């Protein structure tokens, strides 16, 4: 779907918000997603809490990372995700060069039998901000190798367009640094970025609480990815529910079209017919 062609979700007035998204699916690289919330699996204290949070969030797409096999690891993440019937979105978290990211993506494809890759190439240890040059290089190579590439990028509209032009299936701009919980720090850039590309925009990183996710959707993002805000909340399952509702509310509000901001009041009650008292 070309998001610019479908600004208004077709939601009948009588449909309760909890059922609305089924009328307004998200299409990425030919795959239909009925939930616009993508869940990061990192940071959950247990696989049980991850499974419960997946159910509460309603997500259909969950990220995983690749690391060396730990013979002492308990429980199978793969089994939990298979039972939850979600699709996997492997990432290249921890990679600092295009070379490492490309090799990691190829290993993920081999391990998980998916062409989808959330491409992360980190350029700074303190902020975990993307390295734009290496990111573009890796994205190009992976698109050529047949991957469905979803790059974690900055909120720069020009870079987003470059990523789209080389064939990325979506772009994933950050709201704020990974795990910072600072929300959408630059809503202006995110809305410019939304206008700059036609591929789906998934706000990634920075979401701290439900209102951050709702704001991203109100700005026109097609989906939101949340990890730490859910997995590290005091009650992850409850926050997963909150995020689900926030993403739905934000999407509906975006489709509904907000009123313009005004400097002064604008009465909604007419002055006409106002009684006169002495």
């Amino acid at each position: 779907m070309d998001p610019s062609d479908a600004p208004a979700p077709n939601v009948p007035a009588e449909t309760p918000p909890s059922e609305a998204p089924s009328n307004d699916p998200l299409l990425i690289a030919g795959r239909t997603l009925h939930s616009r919330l993508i869940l990061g699996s990192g940071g959950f204290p247990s696989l049980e809490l991850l499974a419960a949070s997946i159910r509460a969030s309603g997500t259909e797409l969950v990220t995983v990372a690749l690391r060396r096999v730990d013979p002492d690891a308990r429980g199978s993440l793969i089994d939990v995700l298979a039972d939850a019937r979600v699709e996997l979105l492997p990432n290249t978290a921890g990679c600092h060069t295009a070379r490492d990211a490309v090799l990691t993506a190829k290993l993920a494809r081999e391990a998980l039998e998916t062409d989808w890759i959330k491409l992360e190439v980190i350029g700074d240890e303190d902020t975990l901000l993307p390295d734009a040059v290496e990111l573009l290089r890796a994205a190009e190579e992976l698109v050529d190798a047949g991957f469905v590439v979803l790059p974690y990028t900055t909120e720069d509209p020009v870079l987003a367009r470059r990523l789209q032009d080389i064939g990325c299936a979506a772009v994933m701009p950050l709201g704020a640094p990974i795990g910072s919980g600072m929300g959408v720090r630059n809503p202006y850039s995110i809305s410019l970025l939304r206008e700059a590309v036609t591929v789906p925009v998934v706000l990634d990183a920075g979401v701290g609480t439900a209102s951050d996710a709702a704001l991203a959707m109100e700005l026109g993002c097609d989906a939101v990815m949340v990890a730490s805000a859910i997995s590290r909340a005091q009650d992850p399952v409850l926050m997963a529910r909150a995020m689900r509702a926030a993403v739905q509310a934000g999407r509906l509000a975006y489709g509904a079209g907000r009123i313009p901001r005004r400097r002064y009041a604008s009465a909604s009650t007419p002055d006409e017919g106002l009684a006169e008292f002495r």
Partner: protein
Amino acid sequence: MILLNGRPSDVPPGETLAAVLARLGLSLDARGVAIAVDDEVVPRSRWETHTLADGARVEVLTAIQGG
């Protein structure tokens, strides 16, 4: 000497990747596992036949929670 997941190992040269997997308690059909030897992916279909040369660097990876 063969490096297995970044550590010197007692895996002898000539051993197959299938045998290396067994050392890690994994079977050939283990789900969510991938192997790189000297920075190249070795597809699952070659795990039984791919033998390791002395000095090989083997990375056996799997999916973990992340992102």
